[in-house]
């Protein structure tokens, strides 16, 4: 029997199904692509409800009270550091740095008292200013009117 030459038996692969599938995959990945948004966060540690207060009274620097007053529609009406009004969050940062800056900043705790109607962005603005003033212990007190 005569052997066939290599030229006669050359098999061409049909690429069409593979290209079809590859384009399907490409389309899927393109449509499901969600650009990664890098978020930031402020870590806040608060007491759990079940935890009892310590029995032994330790010496503690009193917390810096920051009051955020809101208008009826949730805008920021006033910022108070203790009982003194500050003009802006930048001003708050400067005042806090003057009061509790330097080595003391790690020891000092800030307590934010915000009105219930206040928009969340203003609350974060206050947290941002306190963080910029190197205050890491931030707590939220019950809301106001």
């Amino acid at each position, binding site marked *: 029997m005569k052997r066939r030459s290599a030229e006669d038996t050359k098999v061409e692969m049909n*690429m069409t199904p*593979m*290209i079809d599938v*590859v*384009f399907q*995959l*490409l389309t899927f*990945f*393109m449509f*499901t*692509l*969600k650009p*990664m*948004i*890098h*978020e*930031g*966060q*402020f*870590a*806040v*540690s*608060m*007491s*759990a*409800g*079940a*935890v009892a207060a310590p029995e032994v009274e330790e010496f503690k620097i009193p917390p810096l009270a920051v009051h955020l007053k*809101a208008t009826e529609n*949730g805008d920021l009406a006033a910022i108070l550091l203790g009982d003194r009004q500050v003009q802006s969050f930048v001003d708050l940062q400067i005042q806090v740095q003057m009061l509790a800056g330097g080595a003391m900043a790690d020891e000092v705790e800030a307590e934010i008292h*915000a*009105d*219930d*109607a*206040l*928009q*969340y*962005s203003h*609350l*974060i*603005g206050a*947290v*941002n200013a306190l*963080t*910029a003033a190197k205050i890491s212990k931030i707590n*939220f007190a*019950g*809301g106001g009117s």
Partner: protein
Amino acid sequence: MRKKPSPGGDAAMDMTPMIDMTFQLITFFMFVLNFSKDAADERVRLPIADQATPVEGATAEPLFLNVDRDGKLLAVGQAWDVMTQGAAIETYLSREAALAKRNMQYAAYTDAKVAADLNAGKIWSTVVVRADHSTPYRGIRGLIEMCQKIGYYKFAMRAMPEEQL
């Protein structure tokens, strides 16, 4: 001038560069695909805060609380009003807490701190608050208080370090 007829008549297109490029594109899209959705709800527009620490890696055992602009908690495909549907939210939070406590029980065999936390009724999960920039504080406060009552004590408040286009 007359055009010369092509010598072979049957011109086969070389597909190799196109297939190469397509595979490169697929590889790219596969790598940038974000499978861990982080339970981040796109309806929530976070406030901007330049001091917010960038989130690196995954938070261990997180409990995401997405709160929309109307003060509604977006969870398990529903929108719960924090002020009026507090009981339903508390049930949801308690169920999540029970799951976290079960995981803590396993870890407590080898970690004394986890065992102490478990005995004190504290839950190791971090509550990640993702609230819309314009949501009223009362909703957030309500949620935080509910979480504290259940035993959560670690909180993280999400914000955007810079404005997104």
